[in-house]
């Protein structure tokens, strides 16, 4: 069943009199439960495509549907609520909130959804155990290793049981051993919970784990 469908998706950035075509007529379908990778050199349009799929930005032309809903028709508030409920993000630099503990960082998306404290506690402790961080709940990011921080970030992306997880270079700041563990973890969660994962990466190891590769070059799909 198709989750994301883009049709002739284009994005042009305008800066003064300069126009940069970041994405050109991209048509693509991502099925539910995929574990796919978008690859391509810097400037190929990976970021732009991620931003559009994640409703962080709007296309210049073309359509993008998510579970049948046209994302380009959503206003700013609706896009925010869409991201809040349906998308999980994993960032290259982890982007944890330094003043919050591992527990609080993971609980953050649930707080946004207004889930009760009791339910949050139960869910967060379970997931932190699942990602191998049992006993580290009260540690702040500065007291965690890079791999542990990325595990927290993965847990944060998954805690609300999103429809789609967008992960940008999730292994870029990790050594190969830790990177492999993180990928295994995400693959496991993908299989167990049937969550769709979409990666943007240059890392061959990430590509090895993926079930599908989408190549981008100069804003166009080369697949």
């Amino acid at each position, binding site marked *: 069943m198709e989750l994301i469908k883009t049709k002739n998706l284009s994005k042009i950035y305008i800066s003064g009199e300069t126009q940069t075509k970041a994405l050109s007529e991209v048509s693509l379908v991502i099925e539910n439960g995929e574990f796919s990778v978008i690859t391509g050199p810097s400037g190929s349009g990976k970021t732009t495509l991620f931003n559009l799929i994640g409703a*962080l930005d709007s296309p210049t032309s073309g359509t993008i549907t998510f579970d049948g809903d046209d994302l380009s028709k959503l206003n700013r508030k609706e896009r925010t609520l869409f*991201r809040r409920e349906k998308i999980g993000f994993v960032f290259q630099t982890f982007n944890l909130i330094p003043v919050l503990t591992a527990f609080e960082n993971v609980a953050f*998306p649930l707080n*946004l959804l207004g889930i009760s404290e009791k339910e949050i506690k139960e869910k967060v402790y379970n997931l932190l155990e699942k990602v191998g961080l049992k006993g580290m709940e009260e540690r702040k990011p500065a007291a965690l290793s890079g791999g542990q921080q990325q595990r927290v970030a993965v847990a944060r992306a998954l805690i609300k049981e999103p429809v789609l997880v967008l992960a940008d270079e999730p292994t870029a700041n990790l050594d190969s051993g830790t990177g492999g563990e993180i990928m295994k973890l995400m693959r496991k969660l993908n299989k167990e919970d049937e969550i769709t994962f979409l990666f943007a990466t240059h890392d061959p190891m990430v590509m090895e784990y993926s079930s599908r590769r989408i190549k981008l070059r100069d804003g166009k799909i080369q697949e």
Partner: protein
Amino acid sequence: MKFVFKLGMKNLFRYKERTFLTCLSLGVGVCVLIFFNGMLEWADEASIRNLKKYETASMKIGNTEFFKEDNYIPVDEVIEEKEKIEKILNGKELEYTPEIKFKANLINEITGDSYPFFGMGIVAESHKKVYDLDEMIYEGNLPEKGNEIMIGKNTVELLNVKVGDFLIIETDTKDGAHNADAFKLAALFETPNPEVNKNFFYISIDAANNLLDMGGDINLISVKTEQNEEKLKQELKKEIDIEGITVRTWQEQAQDYIDLSQGKKGGSSMMLMMVFIIITVGIVNTMNMAVFERTGEIGMMRAMGMTNREIILNFIYESGAMGFLGGVLGLVLGSIVTWYLIRYGLDMSNYVGDISYGYRVSAVFRSKWDPGMMITALIFSTISASVISTFPARRALKRSISETLKSAGKFG
């Protein structure tokens, strides 16, 4: 919203040193506001007290022409039908005292130094009931008879005289003739009212009557009352009903002070504005830094579905708490300063000396508790800081999410 508040509080202590310095600058601003306000409130209260006790009484009754110009004293403009007025005042059981006010030069008999003053011919017994000048005499007594004179401490220094020396009073009589006589310095006073200390000398009403050739006339009656002055003035005006007789309340007599006091209200607004500027600069700097450093974090929070309102609220809580803590610090510092001033005072005599600046207070500045202003300062500090923080936060939210995320490293 509880977690947004919690996050704001955690961010408050993220950069402890910066938060402390911002709170300190706000605290100093609020402390300065409390310090000046307390001192002005005290100056106001003390001035009114010192005007009534030593200079104007509650009100004065006199010839309308006599009151026309404050610095021109026409001694020939006397009170007609003073018996009728005294009868009315007695009927109302009011304390009053007759006076002869005149302009004169005081001359040191030996050196020949001469300075202009206001002379007051008084009746010691009734004067004590209307004024508190007798309590401020540090040598001698109120002049009661003969050629005895009482002068202020400042005048002693100015004329370089001591008790027992003779001073010449040179003046014009009621009929305009020039007259002078020698008076023995018999008493010295120092009141908390610098205008009285600097500008007045006192002799008995009999001596003034002789010197000015008044023929038993007086030109002023000072009245003391605890009632509303304006209301009593209207009553007296109606009852006295003599053409050419005017009743002037202390407010009308001390117009220079009233003008200054009115100006003080504008001064308080200026001080609030000054504190607002301190708060603005402090908070804007701190919050600009916070927003700049957390641009990526803001992008991440937005990407995860935090609304602009929640993000702004997060900064409002953080900044508002900073304003509150700064305000509390200011209250503590301001309270210490106020307590010190009330207890010990701040001796400014070396700086202000004899300079007249409208307030009828001594050069030892004190303060007054003003809980209203303290609460206002705390609320003002908290609200201003909260409101100001929204500007940098809104500016950060104008940038696209993908742009802000790039600040944190890389996404996509």
